[in-house]
């Protein structure tokens, strides 16, 4: 391809629209959350027949699968919630011109929230010195 300057350019290149991707991801994460809700209800109903204690929850978090699941859930919830906030703001007719900046700003906030979640789960991610690891 030549690198000559183009006489006319679009404001956005095809397929780079934040609006399209955020809309699609909102649908996908929404669907995943509905599926999660059923899993959540099922787990609550069938697997916790005994008394739910703090130690029991900590014990469950010893399983790497649960940690991965929790982190994924955290990311999905954060995206869905913050993009929902963006849509609500736009629906009020505010921030329309800055919808892309609004998206990235909220995603930055989301990233910070996610990192905070990772920080909270860090002992379980590294499986080192997790409180309650000696509970039988």
């Amino acid at each position, binding site marked *: *391809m030549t690198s000559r300057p*183009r006489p*006319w350019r679009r404001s956005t290149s095809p*397929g780079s629209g934040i*609006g399209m991707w955020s809309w699609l991801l909102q649908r996908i994460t929404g669907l995943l959350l509905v599926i999660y809700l059923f899993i959540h209800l099922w787990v609550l109903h069938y697997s916790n027949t005994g008394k739910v204690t703090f130690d029991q929850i900590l014990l469950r978090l010893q399983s790497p699968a649960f940690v991965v699941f929790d982190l994924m859930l955290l990311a999905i919830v954060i995206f869905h919630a913050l993009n929902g906030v963006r849509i609500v703001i*736009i629906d*009020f007719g505010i921030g329309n011109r800055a*919808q892309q900046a609004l998206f990235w700003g909220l995603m930055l906030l989301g990233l910070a929230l996610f990192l905070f979640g990772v920080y909270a789960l860090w002992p379980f991610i590294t499986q080192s010195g997790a409180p309650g690891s000696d509970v039988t």
Partner: protein
Amino acid sequence: MVVFRVFRWEKGMDGEKSGKGEGKGRYDVFQLEEKEGMTVLEALFAIKEELDGTLAFRYSCRGAVCGSCAVLINGFPRLACRTQVREVMGGGRVVALDVRGPLALPRVRKTEPGEVLVEPLPGFKVIKDLVVDIKGFFNAYREITPWFRDGAPGEGESRMSQRERERVEPYTNCILCGLCYSACPVQKRDPEFLGPASLAKAWRFISDPRFKERDKAEILEKVDSPRGVWGCDTVYMCTDVCPKKVPPTQGITSIRRQLLKNSIKKILGGGKR
């Protein structure tokens, strides 16, 4: 050299399938000498004049004023007259929503370097090759009644402030090409949806201070429904594809705000508009 892969279909070809999800029709391949400054519309002319006289496509002004030559180029809705061949012949992947399905899932179009894919606008019925039936688009447009009524804006001069003019201006640039209509995922889910162009035009008149309050209320009532402004999913596809930089989504959300304001006023002010 540049290779054009052009969608072809005419009445009587119904049974022919050409690949997954492509539906009816076939793709013809034409080779052209690429020149500097050549637009896709010029290429279509060259094909019609030198290679295949049966190719059908719409055009009129050749300068992005009439909006007739709207087509899908490499999977993205564009005006053929406003698209440089050199700009789109690089090959690669374009991800765009496929509004042909009710779910409007993203569809990846891959083109090789030196190749340009030209298809009719999705969301419309094909009449022949690249010519589509835009009746639905114009019906929705007429339904809004986007014009000054008799006696308006009134005799003599009707003044507008610079700011008021600036507010209306982006929406007056619409050339009714239908690109936004074909890119809108809501349109396919709900064919009754009035569409981005019509709703943007509705805001053009609602926000015009020369337009009478009575007429504004009439248009507001027309778009205050799930077929109107409340149907929009704020996907911004219309704003992305508009060759005239009209921001329909902004117009739609502005109408929503206006409707909301009116409702609140009604509640607080005891039915006063």
